[in-house]
């Protein structure tokens, strides 16, 4: 145990929403920050929010946000004695964590060995089984389509099945297979995506649980093994296996089940020798109310903010405390969620095709008003480059109960939010939060796919501002070009 060590300056090895989020807490704690940026992010929001900023390379992530040497060098150059990886990029890279620590810097995250162990899905499964946590039927022994089909045959598992990258996360390297003839392409795609995204093409195969709900438990541990949970988040609304809407608490859990899953998560965390914040993810089969261990995310989650909203704790701040070696000053009894919180991910994507949308944010108005929290990685005039993920902004709402939180979210999205210049998921998000099944808490991970037509149909709702701009466009044209020929 190294004892406590104060963070003098924190380098945030990330960009966009993640970097901005971490810097907010640093400001609260008066910790100076260093930002790193790639060439297209030169005028990015995080670059100007930090106290110092260092250019670390060109657009491709391997040259910039995944460039470990360059990031370490930047820490030294700027006098930063700690690195926070945010989420994505190097957040779950044990080798980088080790490099940081070996260089004598503070790593704001869990121990490198735990990252490696949990990052390997096969190893994580083994650990879960050992700790007595239920897992989905599956195998780690897959290198080809033939292997996969043979395992299915041997173990009596039917389609659909899921192929996952051992090193995967964030939905990449994750492919669902419904028919034997799709197997070959799926195995190749998953392996190739994983190779490219994580540098490791190994796969595992699991039975796909239909009508599944995605429940995750937020855990927190200090370096001497004090471990608590901060209850669950429900992240069932996804598209292409990426979360779109999250909420806490989960509308799917009974109090009994909640206590049981949370206790399991704490057991597993202790078994791992974990410290810092982390998330234990479970799949809940809503037909049987059985839950299965899915994976551990050894990092700060995108959706951590809703846990902060219901508990009042600042998870980034607690992460910093843990990294500094402070003893956890919170006991499980101190953690008393007393609100309902929702989060939507405002991605720069076409809400119909879900294809990415790039460009310049020509106009931006962020939501405001009571019970709204916004974490934004952009500003009016900023450009959205095509090289990174498409998250523009996290919008959270809180309320006394689920209905209140939903109403606040409806106001935030429908009345206040405005983004011009790129397409965003806003219309889809509004459609979802107004959908009767969603409002009733009746949904599964395939909710968007199953309802996409109906959701899109509800899009056409022009606002007064849109209508005004149409008139202004006409005025611009007739003023510039003179009376129209057809008039």
């Amino acid at each position, binding site marked *: 145990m190294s004892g406590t060590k104060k963070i003098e300056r924190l380098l945030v090895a990330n960009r966009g929403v993640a970097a901005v989020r971490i810097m907010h807490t640093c400001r609260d704690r008066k910790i100076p920050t260093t930002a790193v940026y790639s060439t297209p992010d030169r005028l990015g929001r995080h670059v100007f929010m930090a106290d110092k900023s260092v250019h670390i390379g060109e657009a491709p992530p391997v040259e910039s946000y995944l460039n470990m040497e360059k990031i370490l060098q930047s820490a030294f150059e700027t006098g930063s004695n700690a690195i926070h990886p945010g989420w994505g990029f190097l957040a779950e890279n044990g080798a980088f964590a080790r490099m940081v620590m070996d260089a004598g810097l503070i790593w704001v995250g869990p121990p490198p060995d735990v990252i490696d162990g949990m990052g390997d899905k096969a190893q994580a499964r083994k650990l879960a089984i050992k700790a007595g946590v239920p897992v989905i039927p599956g195998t780690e022994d897959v290198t080809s389509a033939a292997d996969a089909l043979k395992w299915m045959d041997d173990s009596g598992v039917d389609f659909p099945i899921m192929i996952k990258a051992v090193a995967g996360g964030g939905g990449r390297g994750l492919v669902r297979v419904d028919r034997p003839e799709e197997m070959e392409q799926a195995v190749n795609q998953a392996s190739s995506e994983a190779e490219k995204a994580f540098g490791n093409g190994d796969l595992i195969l699991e039975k796909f649980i239909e009508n599944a709900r995605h429940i995750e438990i937020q855990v927190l541990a200090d370096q001497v093994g004090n471990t608590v949970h901060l209850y669950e988040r429900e992240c069932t609304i996804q598209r292409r296996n990426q979360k779109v809407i999250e909420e806490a608490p989960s509308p799917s859990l009974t109090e009994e089940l909640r206590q049981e899953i949370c206790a399991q998560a704490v057991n597993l965390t202790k078994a791992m020798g974990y410290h810092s914040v982390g998330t234990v993810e479970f799949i809940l089969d809503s037909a049987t109310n059985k839950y299965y261990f899915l994976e551990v995310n050894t990092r700060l989650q995108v959706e951590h903010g809703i846990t902060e909203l219901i508990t009042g704790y600042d998870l980034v701040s607690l992460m910093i405390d843990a990294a500094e070696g402070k003893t956890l000053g919170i006991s499980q009894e101190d953690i008393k969620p007393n609100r309902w919180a929702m989060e939507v991910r405002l991605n720069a994507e076409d809400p119909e095709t879900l294809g990415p949308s790039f460009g310049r944010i020509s106009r931006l108005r962020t939501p405001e008003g009571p019970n709204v929290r916004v974490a934004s990685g952009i500003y009016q005039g900023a450009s959205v480059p095509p090289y990174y993920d498409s998250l523009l902004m996290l919008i959270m709402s809180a309320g006394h109960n689920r209905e209140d939180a939903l109403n606040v979210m409806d106001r935030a999205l429908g009345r206040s939010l405005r983004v011009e210049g790129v397409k965003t998921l806003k219309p889809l998000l509004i459609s979802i939060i107004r959908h009767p099944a969603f409002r009733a808490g009746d949904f599964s991970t395939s909710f968007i796919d199953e309802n996409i037509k109906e959701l899109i149909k509800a899009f056409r709702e022009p606002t007064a501002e849109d209508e005004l701009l149409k008139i*202004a466009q006409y*005025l611009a*044209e007739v003023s510039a070009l003179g009376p129209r020929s057809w008039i």
Partner: protein
Amino acid sequence: MSDKNMFRPGMSPKDLVNKVRSLPGVGITSTGMRDAGQSDFKNRLRIHDLETLAPHYERMDLFSAEVHGGARWHVGIMNRRESPFEEIVLLREKMPNVILQTLVRETSLWGYRPYPKNVIKYVISQVDIDIWRCFSFLNDVRNMRTICEVVMERGLHFQPAVSFTQADWATNEYYIKVVDDMVDLCGGVEEIVMCIKDMAGVGSPERIRELVDAMLQKYPEMVIQYHRHSTDGLGLPALLAAAQAGAKLLDAQEDSLTRFYGQPPILSLHAYLEEAGIPVHLNRPETEAAVQTAREWIRHYGWAESPFKGTDHTVVQHRMPGGAFPSSFEQAEQGGFLHLMPMILKVMSLYNRIVHYFDVTPGSQMTWVTCSGTVNRYAKEFGLAGVNSLIALLTKFTEEVDQDLDRLYPDEKTELMEFFTTAPGDFKNLILGRYGKLPAGWPADWVYESAFGDRWKEQLAKRSDASPLDSTRDEDLDALRADLAAKLEWEPTEEEFILYLMHPKDTVDMIHFREEYGEASIVLPTSVWHSGLAKPGDTVDFTMMNKPHTVEMVSVGEEHEGYISVVLRINNQTRVFTVETPRAVKTEIRMARAANEVGSPITGSIWRLGNPKRGDLAVGDVVHEGEEIANIEAMKMENVIAATLTGRIAEICIQLNDSVIEGQLLFVLEEEIEEE
């Protein structure tokens, strides 16, 4: 007071007719919101301005307001970008106690082709109008049956209109026969107002007096309404003559809207009739206020006026209808043949002695296209002298030789036989009976020979005496609706569908315009709607969705590569708009359209061509349906591009590492043809 209006929507036709009979003098229909604008302003008067008259109409004690129909539909869709349905809703709200009146053609309604019964029934039953003035350009009363039935079934007021002209064949006897048919159609005179529609303004006062008198002698209980244009300059005396002979209803328009070809001015008419001892049922002070209100905005419509100014008494010869005057002259101006107009009008006056029908839609368009086309052709080939010799020939044929071809010289005969060769298809359909029977019999055989050439006898044998109502087959409304849905990419509303039935192409254009420019056509004041904001600092105030808005011009930039940046301050917020000029330089991205073209499903970048198994691909390679032929990365996700068919690669339209947009053409494939 509005609640004391003598004539109100919802009254039964019978009640309405009895109320008119009880008038000591005459009642008035104002055409200010329809025919006035059509006849002098090419139908460009916008509902934005017209609605300011509504509060006055509500108190003017009108019999009715003609606010709908005629060409106002088509021009609304095509030029004003307004829907006639929106107009009705607005007017009902602003003048709920005023009877709304339309003008409808008997089978072509507000479009330009004869519709089958099922379309007529469908359209007529969905329009919220009280009085349906219906005419036939052939006075073929049979053609009115469907509209008449639907309107009467709805308990609304069907108003048959006799198309009127002054010609040797258009005698009182002829008109009484038409009126007889109309009375039969409507089951007597108790529930109808009979309209005399003098659409060109050619009825001389004494001729009109005689006709009204003859009609009343035959039908003493009949209520007659006289509608006429002022083109000949004799509008007021003709209206007085009609009233003196017993017509109970007259059409007029607000004096400030009066130019040359619309209805006579309402205040002048009021004064003129009262002086002659005929009481006029009209709230004079309110009417004066309406006239003043119209004066405030009509000055913004100078651009819409006819290039031909002044009344024209020769209308009694050429018979161009008032409603067609400004648009015909506008066409002549745009086509560069304004100087030929006097000759075209002369040819029209000779033409209508050869073929007899009424110069009103769609007949007036046939006359116009045939005569203006012929004169232009002559002018191009033989100059003005050629046009004059054509006029001389037509004059000789109609006036000297009694339309006897054999009394012309052979070369004259040959030339005359050319006259109808370039006539439009509508004219050919007309003389084959596709619109109904002609009012004074079919034209002479030589007209068919001229129009159809060697095969004229064959064509003539197909001529039918039947009403188009009986010969036009029903259309598949569901299929038509599906057509529109496909064009719009959404389910059309009932109203959009009805507009589409009348004017398919222009309706789709208008809907797209409204998608793009919203309510610009409804909320902007006319000067700004027409010309925009002229200089920095100019502002426009308007109300939209019940809220005030202001747009201020900041600057219009220089043109750069065909684009102009316009800076506007919208409700105090500055914004830049890009305006595309016709010179805009566009880099064209080819999109996949055909089945053998493979497009990108997503916006992203091509990171692999071919697939790992077979490697790269080249033109000429054979690929199999479903085989991966490229892979696109977007936001770190891979997307397989699969061959859509089995065949050869004809073209690879992209290169490795290219950025592509959704739908962009990636490959052109060629299906393998099995060769023996």
